[in-house]
Protein backbone atom coordinates (compact mmCIF):
# COMPACT_ATOMS: atom_id res chain seq x y z
CA UNK A 1 0.00 0.00 0.00
CA UNK A 2 1.19 3.46 -0.78
CA UNK A 3 0.32 6.76 0.70
CA UNK A 4 -2.01 9.21 -0.89
CA UNK A 5 -0.55 12.69 -1.13
CA UNK A 6 -2.79 15.70 -0.75
CA UNK A 7 -3.25 18.78 -2.88
CA UNK A 8 -5.97 21.42 -2.60
CA UNK A 9 -8.17 19.75 -5.24
CA UNK A 10 -7.96 16.21 -3.81
CA UNK A 11 -5.38 13.42 -3.50
CA UNK A 12 -2.85 11.75 -5.76
CA UNK A 13 -0.08 9.16 -5.81
CA UNK A 14 3.39 9.36 -7.20
CA UNK A 15 3.97 7.82 -10.60
CA UNK A 16 6.31 5.20 -9.21
CA UNK A 17 3.60 4.09 -6.81
CA UNK A 18 1.02 3.94 -9.58
CA UNK A 19 3.40 1.87 -11.67
CA UNK A 20 4.09 -0.44 -8.75
CA UNK A 21 0.38 -0.88 -8.21
CA UNK A 22 -0.04 -1.98 -11.80
CA UNK A 23 2.80 -4.44 -11.44
CA UNK A 24 1.33 -5.88 -8.25
CA UNK A 25 -2.12 -6.27 -9.77
CA UNK A 26 -0.68 -7.81 -12.91
CA UNK A 27 1.60 -10.20 -11.02
CA UNK A 28 -1.27 -11.36 -8.86
CA UNK A 29 -3.37 -12.15 -11.94
CA UNK A 30 -0.51 -13.81 -13.80
CA UNK A 31 0.08 -16.14 -10.86
CA UNK A 32 -3.41 -17.45 -11.59
CA UNK A 33 -5.64 -19.15 -9.00
CA UNK A 34 -5.32 -21.78 -6.33
CA UNK A 35 -1.64 -22.84 -6.03
CA UNK A 36 -2.68 -26.33 -4.94
CA UNK A 37 -4.73 -26.86 -8.07
CA UNK A 38 -1.88 -25.56 -10.20
CA UNK A 39 0.56 -27.86 -8.46
CA UNK A 40 -1.71 -30.89 -8.68
CA UNK A 41 -2.17 -30.36 -12.39
CA UNK A 42 1.52 -29.75 -12.93
CA UNK A 43 2.34 -33.02 -11.20
CA UNK A 44 -0.20 -34.78 -13.40
CA UNK A 45 1.77 -33.51 -16.39
CA UNK A 46 -0.87 -31.00 -17.43
CA UNK A 47 -0.41 -27.50 -18.73
CA UNK A 48 -1.99 -24.50 -17.06
CA UNK A 49 -4.23 -22.06 -18.88
CA UNK A 50 -1.41 -19.63 -19.74
CA UNK A 51 1.01 -22.35 -20.83
CA UNK A 52 -1.63 -23.54 -23.27
CA UNK A 53 -1.85 -20.09 -24.83
CA UNK A 54 1.94 -19.88 -25.03
CA UNK A 55 1.96 -23.19 -26.85
CA UNK A 56 -0.73 -22.06 -29.26
CA UNK A 57 0.76 -18.75 -30.27
CA UNK A 58 3.96 -18.22 -32.27
CA UNK A 59 6.97 -17.66 -29.96
CA UNK A 60 4.62 -18.01 -27.00
CA UNK A 61 3.61 -14.38 -27.46
CA UNK A 62 0.10 -13.14 -27.00
CA UNK A 63 -1.72 -9.93 -26.31
CA UNK A 64 -4.09 -10.33 -23.40
CA UNK A 65 -7.17 -8.22 -23.01
CA UNK A 66 -9.52 -7.93 -20.06
CA UNK A 67 -7.18 -9.38 -17.45
CA UNK A 68 -8.63 -7.05 -14.81
CA UNK A 69 -12.25 -7.93 -15.53
CA UNK A 70 -14.05 -8.90 -12.36
CA UNK A 71 -17.44 -10.29 -11.35
CA UNK A 72 -19.88 -7.98 -9.57
CA UNK A 73 -21.90 -10.44 -7.51
CA UNK A 74 -21.67 -10.03 -3.74
CA UNK A 75 -23.96 -12.86 -2.60
CA UNK A 76 -22.57 -16.02 -1.05
CA UNK A 77 -19.19 -14.45 -0.17
CA UNK A 78 -18.53 -13.58 -3.78
CA UNK A 79 -17.50 -10.09 -2.66
CA UNK A 80 -14.40 -11.68 -1.11
CA UNK A 81 -13.67 -14.11 -3.95
CA UNK A 82 -10.39 -13.54 -5.78
CA UNK A 83 -10.78 -14.96 -9.29
CA UNK A 84 -7.78 -13.96 -11.41
CA UNK A 85 -8.85 -12.93 -14.92
CA UNK A 86 -12.36 -14.14 -14.00
CA UNK A 87 -11.22 -17.71 -14.68
CA UNK A 88 -10.69 -17.20 -18.41
CA UNK A 89 -7.80 -15.60 -20.24
CA UNK A 90 -8.74 -13.93 -23.51
CA UNK A 91 -5.88 -13.32 -25.87
CA UNK A 92 -4.80 -12.55 -29.41
CA UNK A 93 -1.68 -13.75 -31.10
CA UNK A 94 -0.30 -15.21 -34.27
CA UNK A 95 -0.53 -18.85 -35.26
CA UNK A 96 1.79 -19.72 -38.12
CA UNK A 97 2.03 -16.02 -38.86
CA UNK A 98 -1.69 -15.29 -38.94
CA UNK A 99 -3.75 -13.57 -36.23
CA UNK A 100 -6.01 -15.75 -34.12
CA UNK A 101 -8.21 -14.97 -31.12
CA UNK A 102 -8.44 -17.43 -28.26
CA UNK A 103 -9.65 -17.92 -24.76
CA UNK A 104 -8.25 -20.33 -22.23
CA UNK A 105 -10.30 -21.26 -19.19
CA UNK A 106 -8.32 -21.42 -15.95
CA UNK A 107 -9.40 -24.30 -13.75
CA UNK A 108 -7.27 -22.99 -10.88
CA UNK A 109 -9.35 -19.80 -10.68
CA UNK A 110 -12.54 -20.89 -8.93
CA UNK A 111 -12.51 -24.05 -11.06
CA UNK A 112 -12.80 -21.98 -14.24
CA UNK A 113 -16.47 -21.57 -13.48
CA UNK A 114 -18.62 -19.67 -15.90
CA UNK A 115 -20.15 -16.52 -14.45
CA UNK A 116 -21.52 -13.32 -15.92
CA UNK A 117 -18.18 -11.64 -16.65
CA UNK A 118 -16.44 -14.90 -17.51
CA UNK A 119 -19.07 -15.36 -20.20
CA UNK A 120 -18.87 -11.75 -21.25
CA UNK A 121 -15.11 -12.07 -21.83
CA UNK A 122 -15.63 -15.17 -23.96
CA UNK A 123 -18.42 -13.61 -26.02
CA UNK A 124 -16.34 -10.46 -26.49
CA UNK A 125 -13.37 -12.45 -27.79
CA UNK A 126 -15.58 -14.08 -30.41
CA UNK A 127 -17.24 -10.83 -31.41
CA UNK A 128 -13.87 -9.13 -31.69
CA UNK A 129 -12.55 -12.00 -33.81
CA UNK A 130 -15.57 -11.82 -36.10
CA UNK A 131 -15.29 -8.07 -36.61
CA UNK A 132 -11.57 -8.29 -37.32
CA UNK A 133 -11.92 -11.37 -39.50
CA UNK A 134 -9.68 -13.75 -37.58
CA UNK A 135 -10.30 -17.35 -36.47
CA UNK A 136 -11.35 -18.11 -32.93
CA UNK A 137 -10.11 -20.92 -30.69
CA UNK A 138 -11.74 -21.76 -27.36
CA UNK A 139 -9.88 -23.87 -24.80
CA UNK A 140 -12.50 -25.35 -22.51
CA UNK A 141 -11.60 -26.35 -18.98
CA UNK A 142 -14.33 -25.34 -16.59
CA UNK A 143 -16.22 -26.65 -13.59
CA UNK A 144 -19.42 -25.37 -15.16
CA UNK A 145 -21.88 -22.65 -14.28
CA UNK A 146 -20.98 -20.36 -11.35
CA UNK A 147 -24.20 -20.90 -9.42
CA UNK A 148 -23.44 -18.15 -6.91
CA UNK A 149 -24.24 -15.61 -9.62
CA UNK A 150 -27.64 -17.09 -10.38
CA UNK A 151 -29.52 -15.37 -13.17
CA UNK A 152 -26.47 -13.31 -14.21
CA UNK A 153 -24.64 -16.53 -15.07
CA UNK A 154 -27.60 -17.93 -16.94
CA UNK A 155 -27.98 -14.82 -19.05
CA UNK A 156 -24.31 -14.83 -20.04
CA UNK A 157 -24.67 -18.22 -21.76
CA UNK A 158 -27.20 -16.67 -24.10
CA UNK A 159 -24.77 -13.91 -25.06
CA UNK A 160 -22.12 -16.50 -25.80
CA UNK A 161 -24.36 -18.75 -27.90
CA UNK A 162 -25.81 -15.84 -29.85
CA UNK A 163 -22.42 -14.28 -30.50
CA UNK A 164 -20.85 -17.48 -31.73
CA UNK A 165 -23.85 -18.19 -33.95
CA UNK A 166 -23.56 -14.73 -35.47
CA UNK A 167 -19.86 -15.39 -36.09
CA UNK A 168 -20.62 -18.80 -37.64
CA UNK A 169 -19.74 -18.75 -41.31
CA UNK A 170 -17.78 -15.51 -40.91
CA UNK A 171 -14.71 -16.88 -39.11
CA UNK A 172 -13.59 -20.45 -38.39
CA UNK A 173 -14.30 -21.45 -34.78
CA UNK A 174 -12.47 -24.35 -33.17
CA UNK A 175 -13.16 -25.77 -29.71
CA UNK A 176 -10.54 -27.62 -27.69
CA UNK A 177 -11.70 -29.85 -24.85
CA UNK A 178 -8.78 -29.76 -22.42
CA UNK A 179 -10.78 -30.24 -19.24
CA UNK A 180 -14.41 -30.68 -18.27
CA UNK A 181 -17.16 -28.93 -20.22
CA UNK A 182 -20.41 -30.26 -18.82
CA UNK A 183 -23.96 -28.99 -18.77
CA UNK A 184 -25.55 -26.44 -21.08
CA UNK A 185 -22.10 -24.92 -21.40
CA UNK A 186 -21.22 -27.84 -23.68
CA UNK A 187 -23.37 -26.28 -26.39
CA UNK A 188 -20.56 -23.79 -26.77
CA UNK A 189 -18.00 -26.24 -28.22
CA UNK A 190 -20.62 -28.20 -30.13
CA UNK A 191 -21.87 -25.08 -31.90
CA UNK A 192 -18.37 -24.25 -33.15
CA UNK A 193 -17.10 -25.60 -36.46
CA UNK A 194 -14.75 -28.23 -35.06
CA UNK A 195 -14.26 -29.91 -31.69
CA UNK A 196 -10.86 -31.35 -30.75
CA UNK A 197 -10.94 -33.50 -27.61
CA UNK A 198 -7.87 -34.43 -25.58
CA UNK A 199 -7.86 -37.99 -24.26
CA UNK A 200 -8.03 -38.53 -20.49
CA UNK A 201 -8.60 -34.85 -19.59
CA UNK A 202 -11.23 -33.51 -22.02
CA UNK A 203 -14.86 -34.26 -21.17
CA UNK A 204 -18.06 -32.95 -22.70
CA UNK A 205 -21.72 -33.62 -22.09
CA UNK A 206 -25.12 -32.19 -21.36
CA UNK A 207 -24.80 -33.47 -17.77
CA UNK A 208 -22.06 -35.12 -15.74
CA UNK A 209 -22.27 -38.52 -14.02
CA UNK A 210 -23.41 -37.15 -10.64
CA UNK A 211 -26.39 -35.32 -12.12
CA UNK A 212 -27.27 -38.27 -14.35
CA UNK A 213 -27.25 -40.53 -11.31
CA UNK A 214 -29.50 -38.38 -9.13
CA UNK A 215 -31.91 -37.42 -11.89
CA UNK A 216 -32.38 -40.61 -13.91
CA UNK A 217 -30.62 -43.24 -11.82
CA UNK A 218 -27.99 -44.06 -14.43
CA UNK A 219 -24.62 -45.15 -13.07
CA UNK A 220 -21.82 -44.39 -15.48
CA UNK A 221 -18.25 -43.15 -15.24
CA UNK A 222 -17.19 -39.72 -16.48
CA UNK A 223 -14.87 -41.32 -19.02
CA UNK A 224 -17.61 -43.53 -20.43
CA UNK A 225 -20.30 -40.85 -20.43
CA UNK A 226 -18.28 -37.86 -21.60
CA UNK A 227 -14.84 -39.05 -22.75
CA UNK A 228 -13.39 -39.09 -26.24
CA UNK A 229 -14.96 -42.38 -27.25
CA UNK A 230 -18.40 -41.07 -26.30
CA UNK A 231 -18.13 -38.23 -28.78
CA UNK A 232 -15.58 -39.22 -31.43
CA UNK A 233 -17.09 -42.68 -31.91
CA UNK A 234 -20.67 -42.61 -30.64
CA UNK A 235 -22.18 -39.13 -30.84
CA UNK A 236 -20.19 -37.66 -33.71
CA UNK A 237 -19.57 -34.41 -31.85
CA UNK A 238 -15.79 -34.65 -31.52
CA UNK A 239 -14.17 -34.18 -34.91
CA UNK A 240 -10.58 -34.84 -33.94
CA UNK A 241 -9.14 -36.85 -31.03
CA UNK A 242 -5.84 -35.74 -29.49
CA UNK A 243 -3.50 -37.81 -27.34
CA UNK A 244 -3.11 -35.01 -24.79
CA UNK A 245 -3.33 -31.22 -24.42
CA UNK A 246 -0.19 -30.53 -26.42
CA UNK A 247 -1.39 -32.73 -29.23
CA UNK A 248 -4.79 -31.00 -29.18
CA UNK A 249 -3.14 -27.60 -29.60
CA UNK A 250 -0.86 -28.95 -32.35
CA UNK A 251 -3.86 -30.40 -34.17
CA UNK A 252 -5.73 -27.09 -33.91
CA UNK A 253 -2.78 -25.33 -35.52
CA UNK A 254 -2.64 -27.94 -38.23
CA UNK A 255 -6.35 -27.54 -38.90
CA UNK A 256 -5.99 -23.76 -39.07
CA UNK A 257 -3.30 -24.16 -41.73
CA UNK A 258 -5.98 -25.43 -44.13
CA UNK A 259 -8.41 -22.60 -43.46
CA UNK A 260 -8.76 -18.97 -44.49
CA UNK A 261 -8.92 -16.43 -41.67
CA UNK A 262 -12.48 -15.50 -42.61
CA UNK A 263 -15.13 -16.04 -45.26
CA UNK A 264 -13.86 -13.21 -47.46
CA UNK A 265 -10.47 -14.84 -47.94
CA UNK A 266 -9.29 -17.89 -49.79
CA UNK A 267 -7.43 -20.54 -47.83
CA UNK A 268 -3.66 -20.05 -47.85
CA UNK A 269 -1.99 -21.77 -50.78
CA UNK A 270 1.18 -23.63 -49.89
CA UNK A 271 4.17 -24.42 -52.04
CA UNK A 272 4.46 -28.11 -52.82
CA UNK A 273 7.10 -30.30 -54.41
CA UNK A 274 4.44 -32.80 -55.42
CA UNK A 275 3.93 -32.41 -59.20
CA UNK A 276 0.32 -31.44 -60.03
CA UNK A 277 0.23 -33.83 -62.99
CA UNK A 278 1.80 -36.77 -61.16
CA UNK A 279 0.68 -40.07 -62.72
CA UNK A 280 -0.22 -42.84 -60.26
CA UNK A 281 0.06 -46.22 -62.05
CA UNK A 282 -0.74 -48.24 -58.92
CA UNK A 283 -4.25 -46.76 -58.83
CA UNK A 284 -5.06 -48.74 -61.97
CA UNK A 285 -4.64 -51.92 -59.91
CA UNK A 286 -6.38 -50.84 -56.71
CA UNK A 287 -9.94 -51.91 -57.42
CA UNK A 288 -10.84 -55.60 -57.28
CA UNK A 289 -12.41 -56.96 -60.47
CA UNK A 290 -15.48 -58.16 -58.57
CA UNK A 291 -17.86 -55.29 -57.87
CA UNK A 292 -18.96 -56.86 -54.56
CA UNK A 293 -15.46 -56.80 -53.08
CA UNK A 294 -14.59 -53.78 -50.99
CA UNK A 295 -11.40 -51.76 -51.27
CA UNK A 296 -9.95 -49.04 -49.06
CA UNK A 297 -10.96 -45.63 -50.38
CA UNK A 298 -8.37 -44.03 -48.07
CA UNK A 299 -5.73 -45.46 -50.39
CA UNK A 300 -7.22 -43.48 -53.28
CA UNK A 301 -7.25 -40.32 -51.17
CA UNK A 302 -3.65 -40.57 -49.99
CA UNK A 303 -2.51 -41.50 -53.50
CA UNK A 304 -3.96 -38.44 -55.20
CA UNK A 305 -3.48 -35.60 -52.68
CA UNK A 306 -0.29 -33.58 -52.19
CA UNK A 307 2.35 -35.67 -50.39
CA UNK A 308 -0.29 -38.21 -49.35
CA UNK A 309 -1.30 -35.88 -46.55
CA UNK A 310 -4.90 -36.07 -45.35
CA UNK A 311 -6.35 -34.38 -42.25
CA UNK A 312 -9.43 -36.36 -41.42
CA UNK A 313 -12.55 -34.87 -39.84
CA UNK A 314 -14.79 -37.20 -37.80
CA UNK A 315 -12.49 -40.08 -38.69
CA UNK A 316 -13.97 -42.42 -36.08
CA UNK A 317 -17.64 -41.72 -36.77
CA UNK A 318 -19.92 -42.83 -39.63
CA UNK A 319 -16.93 -44.33 -41.36
CA UNK A 320 -18.95 -45.32 -44.39
CA UNK A 321 -18.29 -41.73 -45.44
CA UNK A 322 -14.83 -40.17 -45.22
CA UNK A 323 -14.47 -36.40 -44.80
CA UNK A 324 -11.37 -34.29 -44.39
CA UNK A 325 -8.95 -31.72 -45.71
CA UNK A 326 -6.08 -32.24 -48.10
CA UNK A 327 -4.23 -30.17 -50.66
CA UNK A 328 -4.05 -30.32 -54.43
CA UNK A 329 -1.15 -28.38 -55.88
CA UNK A 330 -1.00 -26.46 -52.61
CA UNK A 331 -4.71 -25.57 -52.55
CA UNK A 332 -6.90 -26.65 -49.66
CA UNK A 333 -9.61 -29.05 -50.78
CA UNK A 334 -12.38 -30.74 -48.80
CA UNK A 335 -12.73 -34.41 -49.62
CA UNK A 336 -15.98 -36.35 -49.31
CA UNK A 337 -15.59 -40.03 -50.14
CA UNK A 338 -17.54 -43.24 -49.71
CA UNK A 339 -15.75 -46.04 -47.88
CA UNK A 340 -16.84 -49.38 -49.36
CA UNK A 341 -15.05 -51.15 -46.50
CA UNK A 342 -17.54 -49.79 -43.98
CA UNK A 343 -21.22 -50.68 -44.22
CA UNK A 344 -20.77 -51.12 -47.98
CA UNK A 345 -20.23 -47.38 -48.28
CA UNK A 346 -23.96 -46.81 -47.92
CA UNK A 347 -25.29 -43.35 -47.10
CA UNK A 348 -27.13 -43.55 -43.80
CA UNK A 349 -28.39 -40.88 -41.42
CA UNK A 350 -25.10 -40.31 -39.63
CA UNK A 351 -23.10 -40.25 -42.86
CA UNK A 352 -25.49 -37.71 -44.39
CA UNK A 353 -25.27 -35.54 -41.30
CA UNK A 354 -21.47 -35.77 -41.22
CA UNK A 355 -21.11 -35.07 -44.92
CA UNK A 356 -23.56 -32.19 -45.13
CA UNK A 357 -22.04 -30.18 -42.30
CA UNK A 358 -18.58 -30.67 -43.76
CA UNK A 359 -19.72 -29.58 -47.23
CA UNK A 360 -21.36 -26.47 -45.81
CA UNK A 361 -18.28 -25.56 -43.81
CA UNK A 362 -16.15 -25.81 -46.96
CA UNK A 363 -18.65 -23.79 -48.95
CA UNK A 364 -18.75 -21.07 -46.28
CA UNK A 365 -14.97 -20.76 -46.29
CA UNK A 366 -14.21 -20.93 -50.02
CA UNK A 367 -12.76 -24.42 -49.95
CA UNK A 368 -13.30 -26.46 -53.15
CA UNK A 369 -14.79 -29.93 -52.75
CA UNK A 370 -13.84 -33.22 -54.38
CA UNK A 371 -15.94 -36.38 -54.04
CA UNK A 372 -14.77 -39.95 -54.59
CA UNK A 373 -17.81 -42.07 -55.27
CA UNK A 374 -18.50 -45.74 -54.72
CA UNK A 375 -21.92 -45.84 -53.14
CA UNK A 376 -24.68 -48.44 -53.44
CA UNK A 377 -27.27 -45.85 -52.41
CA UNK A 378 -29.06 -44.46 -49.42
CA UNK A 379 -29.88 -47.00 -46.74
CA UNK A 380 -33.36 -48.56 -46.97
CA UNK A 381 -35.73 -50.48 -44.72
CA UNK A 382 -38.23 -49.68 -41.98
CA UNK A 383 -35.53 -48.84 -39.47
CA UNK A 384 -33.98 -46.22 -41.75
CA UNK A 385 -37.27 -44.87 -43.04
CA UNK A 386 -38.77 -44.45 -39.57
CA UNK A 387 -35.62 -42.80 -38.30
CA UNK A 388 -36.06 -40.25 -41.08
CA UNK A 389 -33.45 -41.17 -43.68
CA UNK A 390 -35.29 -38.98 -46.18
CA UNK A 391 -35.04 -35.80 -44.16
CA UNK A 392 -31.50 -36.57 -42.99
CA UNK A 393 -30.36 -37.74 -46.42
CA UNK A 394 -31.80 -34.52 -47.83
CA UNK A 395 -29.11 -32.58 -45.98
CA UNK A 396 -26.57 -33.74 -48.55
CA UNK A 397 -28.81 -32.72 -51.43
CA UNK A 398 -29.32 -29.31 -49.88
CA UNK A 399 -25.64 -28.87 -49.13
CA UNK A 400 -24.60 -29.64 -52.70
CA UNK A 401 -27.38 -27.59 -54.25
CA UNK A 402 -26.49 -24.56 -52.17
CA UNK A 403 -22.73 -24.84 -52.61
CA UNK A 404 -20.98 -22.31 -54.85
CA UNK A 405 -17.34 -23.35 -54.41
CA UNK A 406 -15.61 -25.44 -57.12
CA UNK A 407 -17.21 -28.89 -57.08
CA UNK A 408 -15.52 -31.92 -58.64
CA UNK A 409 -16.79 -35.49 -58.58
CA UNK A 410 -14.73 -38.58 -59.33
CA UNK A 411 -16.94 -41.62 -59.84
CA UNK A 412 -14.78 -44.58 -58.96
CA UNK A 413 -17.35 -47.35 -59.03
CA UNK A 414 -21.05 -47.46 -58.08
CA UNK A 415 -23.14 -44.33 -58.39
CA UNK A 416 -26.77 -45.31 -58.12
CA UNK A 417 -30.10 -43.66 -57.50
CA UNK A 418 -30.40 -40.92 -54.88
CA UNK A 419 -26.81 -41.41 -53.86
CA UNK A 420 -25.80 -40.27 -57.35
CA UNK A 421 -26.65 -36.70 -56.34
CA UNK A 422 -26.05 -37.34 -52.64
CA UNK A 423 -22.42 -37.73 -53.63
CA UNK A 424 -22.50 -34.81 -56.10
CA UNK A 425 -23.25 -35.08 -59.78
CA UNK A 426 -23.74 -32.64 -62.61
CA UNK A 427 -27.47 -32.20 -62.05
CA UNK A 428 -27.01 -31.01 -58.48
CA UNK A 429 -24.16 -28.63 -59.18
CA UNK A 430 -20.86 -30.35 -59.99
CA UNK A 431 -18.55 -28.34 -62.23
CA UNK A 432 -16.72 -31.46 -63.36
CA UNK A 433 -17.57 -35.14 -63.20
CA UNK A 434 -14.90 -37.65 -64.17
CA UNK A 435 -15.54 -41.38 -64.09
CA UNK A 436 -13.14 -44.29 -63.96
CA UNK A 437 -13.72 -47.11 -66.49
CA UNK A 438 -14.86 -49.18 -63.49
CA UNK A 439 -17.76 -46.77 -62.87
CA UNK A 440 -21.33 -48.04 -62.85
CA UNK A 441 -23.50 -44.97 -63.13
CA UNK A 442 -27.19 -45.65 -63.40
CA UNK A 443 -30.50 -45.33 -61.62
CA UNK A 444 -30.41 -48.72 -59.91
CA UNK A 445 -28.41 -51.98 -59.79
CA UNK A 446 -29.07 -54.41 -62.63
CA UNK A 447 -30.72 -57.15 -60.56
CA UNK A 448 -33.20 -54.71 -59.04
CA UNK A 449 -33.95 -53.16 -62.42
CA UNK A 450 -34.40 -56.52 -64.13
CA UNK A 451 -36.66 -57.84 -61.39
CA UNK A 452 -38.91 -54.79 -61.74
CA UNK A 453 -39.00 -54.35 -65.51
CA UNK A 454 -39.21 -58.04 -66.34
CA UNK A 455 -41.10 -59.28 -63.27
CA UNK A 456 -43.85 -60.86 -65.30
CA UNK A 457 -41.58 -62.34 -67.94
CA UNK A 458 -39.38 -63.91 -65.26
CA UNK A 459 -42.39 -65.22 -63.33
CA UNK A 460 -43.97 -66.81 -66.37
CA UNK A 461 -40.78 -68.19 -67.86
CA UNK A 462 -40.32 -72.00 -67.84
CA UNK A 463 -36.91 -71.30 -66.34
CA UNK A 464 -37.30 -68.15 -64.16
CA UNK A 465 -33.76 -68.24 -62.84
CA UNK A 466 -32.24 -68.26 -66.30
CA UNK A 467 -34.64 -65.58 -67.55
CA UNK A 468 -33.67 -63.42 -64.60
CA UNK A 469 -29.95 -63.88 -65.21
CA UNK A 470 -30.35 -63.04 -68.88
CA UNK A 471 -32.23 -59.83 -68.15
CA UNK A 472 -29.83 -58.77 -65.37
CA UNK A 473 -26.95 -59.23 -67.76
CA UNK A 474 -28.74 -57.29 -70.46
CA UNK A 475 -29.49 -54.39 -68.09
CA UNK A 476 -25.98 -54.44 -66.71
CA UNK A 477 -24.39 -54.36 -70.15
CA UNK A 478 -26.71 -51.56 -71.24
CA UNK A 479 -26.53 -49.29 -68.25
CA UNK A 480 -23.95 -50.30 -65.61
CA UNK A 481 -21.04 -48.41 -67.13
CA UNK A 482 -19.73 -44.86 -67.29
CA UNK A 483 -20.52 -44.34 -70.97
CA UNK A 484 -24.27 -43.79 -70.94
CA UNK A 485 -23.78 -40.85 -68.58
CA UNK A 486 -20.83 -39.68 -70.70
CA UNK A 487 -22.88 -39.87 -73.90
CA UNK A 488 -25.43 -37.52 -72.39
CA UNK A 489 -22.71 -35.23 -71.02
CA UNK A 490 -23.57 -35.94 -67.37
CA UNK A 491 -20.03 -37.23 -67.01
CA UNK A 492 -17.41 -34.99 -68.58
CA UNK A 493 -14.92 -37.71 -69.34
CA UNK A 494 -13.93 -41.24 -68.53
CA UNK A 495 -10.37 -41.25 -67.23
CA UNK A 496 -7.83 -43.84 -66.22
CA UNK A 497 -7.41 -44.06 -62.43
CA UNK A 498 -3.72 -43.18 -62.85
CA UNK A 499 -4.67 -39.76 -64.24
CA UNK A 500 -7.01 -38.76 -61.41
CA UNK A 501 -4.67 -36.29 -59.70
CA UNK A 502 -3.82 -34.63 -62.98
CA UNK A 503 -7.49 -34.13 -63.89
CA UNK A 504 -8.42 -32.78 -60.47
CA UNK A 505 -5.58 -30.27 -60.58
CA UNK A 506 -6.52 -29.11 -64.07
CA UNK A 507 -10.12 -28.72 -62.99
CA UNK A 508 -9.09 -26.71 -59.92
CA UNK A 509 -6.91 -24.45 -62.08
CA UNK A 510 -9.84 -23.82 -64.36
CA UNK A 511 -12.23 -23.21 -61.47
CA UNK A 512 -9.87 -20.81 -59.70
CA UNK A 513 -12.15 -17.88 -60.49
CA UNK A 514 -15.50 -19.59 -60.17
CA UNK A 515 -17.69 -16.94 -58.63
CA UNK A 516 -21.38 -17.30 -57.95
CA UNK A 517 -23.34 -14.45 -56.42
CA UNK A 518 -26.83 -13.03 -56.90
CA UNK A 519 -25.23 -10.66 -59.41
CA UNK A 520 -23.59 -13.33 -61.56
CA UNK A 521 -26.16 -16.08 -61.41
CA UNK A 522 -29.91 -15.53 -61.84
CA UNK A 523 -31.00 -18.39 -59.59
CA UNK A 524 -29.09 -16.93 -56.65
CA UNK A 525 -31.85 -14.58 -55.59
CA UNK A 526 -31.81 -12.85 -52.24
CA UNK A 527 -33.07 -14.90 -49.33
CA UNK A 528 -32.11 -15.37 -45.71
CA UNK A 529 -31.00 -18.96 -46.27
CA UNK A 530 -32.40 -22.20 -47.65
CA UNK A 531 -34.80 -24.21 -45.52
CA UNK A 532 -32.46 -27.18 -45.16
CA UNK A 533 -33.89 -30.26 -43.45
CA UNK A 534 -32.24 -30.25 -40.05
Amino acid at each position, binding site marked *: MTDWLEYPGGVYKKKEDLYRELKERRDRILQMGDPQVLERRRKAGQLNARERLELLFDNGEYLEIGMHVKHRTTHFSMDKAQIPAEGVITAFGKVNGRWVAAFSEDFSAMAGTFGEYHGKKEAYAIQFAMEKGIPFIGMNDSGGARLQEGMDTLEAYGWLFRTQTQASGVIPQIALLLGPCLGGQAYHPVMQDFVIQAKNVGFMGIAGPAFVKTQIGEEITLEELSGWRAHAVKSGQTHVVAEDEKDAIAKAKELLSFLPSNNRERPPRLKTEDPPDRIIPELDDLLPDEPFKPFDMRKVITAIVDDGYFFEILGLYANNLITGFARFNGRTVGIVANQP*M*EAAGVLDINAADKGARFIRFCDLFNIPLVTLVDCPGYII*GSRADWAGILRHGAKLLYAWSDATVPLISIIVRKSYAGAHYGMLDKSIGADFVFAWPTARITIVGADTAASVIFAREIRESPNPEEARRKRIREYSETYENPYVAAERGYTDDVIMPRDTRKYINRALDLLENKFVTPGTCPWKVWRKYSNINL
Partner: protein
Amino acid sequence: MAQETVTAPLAGKVIKVHVKTGDRVNEGDEVCTMESMKMENTLYAPVSGTVTEVKVAPGQFIQAGDVIAVIEY
Protein backbone atom coordinates in the same frame (compact mmCIF):
# COMPACT_ATOMS: atom_id res chain seq x y z
CA MET B 1 -14.35 -53.92 -17.14
CA ALA B 2 -16.14 -52.08 -19.86
CA GLN B 3 -17.86 -53.67 -22.80
CA GLU B 4 -18.05 -52.80 -26.46
CA THR B 5 -20.23 -54.55 -28.97
CA VAL B 6 -19.70 -55.25 -32.62
CA THR B 7 -23.03 -54.58 -34.29
CA ALA B 8 -24.30 -55.02 -37.83
CA PRO B 9 -24.23 -51.67 -39.63
CA LEU B 10 -26.74 -52.95 -42.17
CA ALA B 11 -29.15 -55.81 -42.59
CA GLY B 12 -27.52 -58.73 -44.38
CA LYS B 13 -26.19 -62.28 -44.28
CA VAL B 14 -23.28 -63.49 -42.18
CA ILE B 15 -20.62 -65.08 -44.38
CA LYS B 16 -17.86 -65.76 -41.90
CA VAL B 17 -17.16 -65.25 -38.20
CA HIS B 18 -13.46 -64.75 -37.55
CA VAL B 19 -13.47 -65.01 -33.73
CA LYS B 20 -14.80 -67.30 -31.03
CA THR B 21 -15.64 -66.78 -27.37
CA GLY B 22 -12.53 -66.33 -25.27
CA ASP B 23 -10.35 -65.01 -28.11
CA ARG B 24 -8.08 -62.04 -27.43
CA VAL B 25 -8.53 -59.42 -30.12
CA ASN B 26 -6.71 -56.22 -30.93
CA GLU B 27 -8.45 -53.08 -32.04
CA GLY B 28 -8.95 -53.36 -35.79
CA ASP B 29 -8.92 -57.18 -35.96
CA GLU B 30 -11.51 -58.80 -38.22
CA VAL B 31 -14.54 -60.03 -36.30
CA CYS B 32 -17.13 -60.91 -38.91
CA THR B 33 -17.69 -60.72 -42.66
CA MET B 34 -21.22 -60.17 -43.87
CA GLU B 35 -22.91 -59.48 -47.15
CA SER B 36 -25.26 -56.55 -47.52
CA MET B 37 -26.17 -54.04 -50.22
CA LYS B 38 -24.54 -56.56 -52.59
CA MET B 39 -21.19 -55.91 -50.94
CA GLU B 40 -18.96 -57.98 -48.75
CA ASN B 41 -18.51 -56.08 -45.57
CA THR B 42 -15.99 -56.88 -42.85
CA LEU B 43 -16.52 -55.71 -39.28
CA TYR B 44 -13.57 -55.00 -37.01
CA ALA B 45 -12.96 -54.98 -33.27
CA PRO B 46 -13.60 -51.46 -31.93
CA VAL B 47 -11.27 -52.06 -28.95
CA SER B 48 -8.60 -54.47 -27.82
CA GLY B 49 -9.96 -57.01 -25.37
CA THR B 50 -11.49 -60.44 -24.92
CA VAL B 51 -14.44 -61.78 -26.88
CA THR B 52 -17.02 -62.77 -24.28
CA GLU B 53 -19.86 -63.61 -26.62
CA VAL B 54 -20.45 -64.41 -30.30
CA LYS B 55 -24.10 -64.16 -31.24
CA VAL B 56 -24.20 -65.05 -34.92
CA ALA B 57 -23.28 -67.96 -37.20
CA PRO B 58 -22.48 -68.12 -40.92
CA GLY B 59 -25.56 -68.18 -43.13
CA GLN B 60 -27.67 -66.29 -40.62
CA PHE B 61 -29.63 -63.20 -41.69
CA ILE B 62 -29.23 -60.31 -39.29
CA GLN B 63 -30.77 -56.87 -38.96
CA ALA B 64 -29.02 -53.52 -38.66
CA GLY B 65 -28.05 -52.95 -35.05
CA ASP B 66 -28.00 -56.68 -34.16
CA VAL B 67 -25.14 -57.55 -31.85
CA ILE B 68 -22.59 -59.81 -33.49
CA ALA B 69 -20.05 -60.10 -30.70
CA VAL B 70 -19.28 -58.62 -27.29
CA ILE B 71 -15.77 -57.57 -26.35
CA GLU B 72 -14.73 -56.88 -22.78
CA TYR B 73 -11.81 -54.57 -22.22
